[in-house]
């Protein structure tokens, strides 16, 4: 029996010809990542355990993105801990204010992560980089500390669910509608401990931004990782960007999957995940009586250039409805700069939205858009758990940038009809 794409990458990093589901392995890591919330805990563990140096200063990435520019004194102290650690260990991929972006938008953009990599990150959405044909998974701070010290991590080789993708998305849909639809089908633990391997004829019709968004939310189905095959779109994206030579892996023809789920992109409709779980998906068209107070367009899920473009196409020349706060957060400084250069930034302001520098801020209820009790937000973020964006009695509806921007114009959940 052959190996899945994930299993092949893991075998190569464990120095083995073959691995099988359930096997425990120790794998070499290409990148170890942390952010301003998880790194301080890792630094503490790293120091407490008596490690003196990181395994490779070019293979550790520390991105300050959750609470920066620092939201308060305590957050400033956490950033300081990260900064001092990065400085004392000469960490080359340290991203501070002015250079930073939301980690999972930033690292692919900057070519820090590439195809064939084995990556761990102390952030659950580290699974994003599977879009590039890498094995990438979220871990905790202790795993980050061990990874920084040794360049290795232990894994249980996952089994996989295959998603056979066909067709082409309607114009008012994006990768977000695809992954929300899948989570709605299989549930928030539908892929627990497993890989989600996306394949099929329809993959070529998904842009890199769509793929990054789809893999980003694999964790919301409980998955260990999500992964796309490498094709021309991947190669074009990586070209001139990857700082290391990409390595291309593909699943064996006789690879074993626990099951195969067919997804026809042509049949996808704009969907919204209702409170308080990402699996509570419903067609946006059925939710037109839901009034919102706030709209957030951004995050590691949907803060990329195509997301900004979708928001621009819908908001340009129009006005955000009275009483609606519309917050737009480009994912990286480069994306922000593009928004300025292309005139989208002005269009957002003229529409009555605010635009922030990159931050995870409101997605996790940190700052920059906290909800009061009883308030409702439609957001392009990734979680709608109880209290996720603020007060325990507030509500988050998850949607695509198209649906969120269309909703900003009406104040009620609105399916985007024209793009």
């Amino acid at each position, binding site marked *: 029996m052959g190996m899945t794409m994930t299993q092949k990458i893991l075998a190569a990093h464990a120095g083995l010809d073959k691995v099988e589901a359930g096997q*425990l392995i120790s794998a070499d890591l290409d990148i170890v990542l942390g952010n301003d*919330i*998880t790194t*301080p*805990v890792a630094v*503490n*563990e790293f120091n*407490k*355990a*008596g490690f003196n140096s990181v395994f490779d200063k070019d293979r550790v990435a520390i991105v300050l993105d*959750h*609470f920066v520019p620092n*939201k*308060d004194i*305590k*957050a400033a*102290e*956490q950033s300081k*801990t990260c900064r001092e650690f990065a400085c004392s260990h000469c960490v080359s991929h340290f991203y501070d204010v002015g250079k930073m972006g939301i980690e999972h938008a930033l690292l692919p953009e900057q070519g820090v992560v590439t195809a064939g990599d084995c990556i761990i990150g*102390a*952030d*659950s959405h*580290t699974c994003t980089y599977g879009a590039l044909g890498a094995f990438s998974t*979220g*871990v*905790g*701070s*202790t*795993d980050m*500390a*061990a990874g920084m*010290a*040794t360049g290795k991590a*232990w894994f249980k080789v996952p089994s996989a669910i295959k998603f056979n993708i066909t067709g082409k998305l309607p114009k008012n849909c994006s990768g977000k509608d695809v992954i929300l639809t899948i989570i709605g089908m299989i549930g*928030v*633990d539908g892929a*627990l*401990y497993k890989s989600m391997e996306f394949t099929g004829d329809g993959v070529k019709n998904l842009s890199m931004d769509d793929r990054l968004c789809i893999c980003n939310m694999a*964790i919301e189905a*409980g998955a*260990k990782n999500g992964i796309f095959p490498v094709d021309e779109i991947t190669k074009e994206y990586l070209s001139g960007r990857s700082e290391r030579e990409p390595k291309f892996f593909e699943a064996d023809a006789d690879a074993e999957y626990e099951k195969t789920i067919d997804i026809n992109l042509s049949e996808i409709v704009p969907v919204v995940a209702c409170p308080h*779980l990402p699996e509570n998906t419903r067609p946006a068209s059925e939710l037109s009586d839901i009034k919102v107070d706030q709209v957030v367009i951004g995050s590691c899920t949907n803060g990329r250039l195509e997301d900004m473009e979708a928001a621009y196409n819908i908001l340009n020349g129009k006005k955000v409805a009275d009483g609606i706060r519309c917050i737009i957060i480009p994912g990286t400084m480069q994306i922000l700069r593009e928004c300025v250069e292309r005139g989208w930034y002005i269009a957002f302001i003229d529409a009555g939205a605010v635009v922030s520098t990159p931050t995870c801020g409101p997605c*996790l*209820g*940190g700052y920059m858009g*906290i909800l009061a009790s009883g308030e409702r937000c439609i957001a392009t973020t990734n*979680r709608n*758990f*109880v*209290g*996720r964006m*603020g007060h*325990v009695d507030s509500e988050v509806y998850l949607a695509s940038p198209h649906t969120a921007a269309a909703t900003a114009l009406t104040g009620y959940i609105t399916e985007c009809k024209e793009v």
Partner: protein
Amino acid sequence: MNTEGKVFKYPDNVDTDVIIPARYLNTPDANELALHCMEDIDKDFVKNVSEGDVMVAGWNFGCGSSREHAPLVIKTCKTGCVIAKSFARIFYRNAINIGLPILECEEAAEEINAGDKVNVDFDTGIIKNLTTGKEYKAQPFPPFIQNIIKCGGLLKSLKEGENNG
């Protein structure tokens, strides 16, 4: 090793945002964070928990964010262990890595009620409900993971490995 205490019962899909809300994550100090453990779904948990008490929950406990602060606050509250029908994978890893005992046992998680008194033996995986008299057996950990737990966490096990050559 074992623990004995009263049960706090929780539903399916308890996420790390309710175990420790992100609004408090501007500090890595476990004692300060622990004051807010479970606050958004059980605001009296911190007040009512005693050393050795046991959390019992449904499927997919600890889903969502990778924050290690979640198992850390549960441990810092002196909770003896968490029993669930299943755990989200990052929480599972983190709990082992920091030395918070967790056990997967569907039947126990289904039948044990809030307030019951239980005794849990981590070495054998035997869960005794002292209130009803019923006994359950949880899945044992694979030896590799047992070694991490025995060493007192991942980093200690790595150090031990180094020392052993």
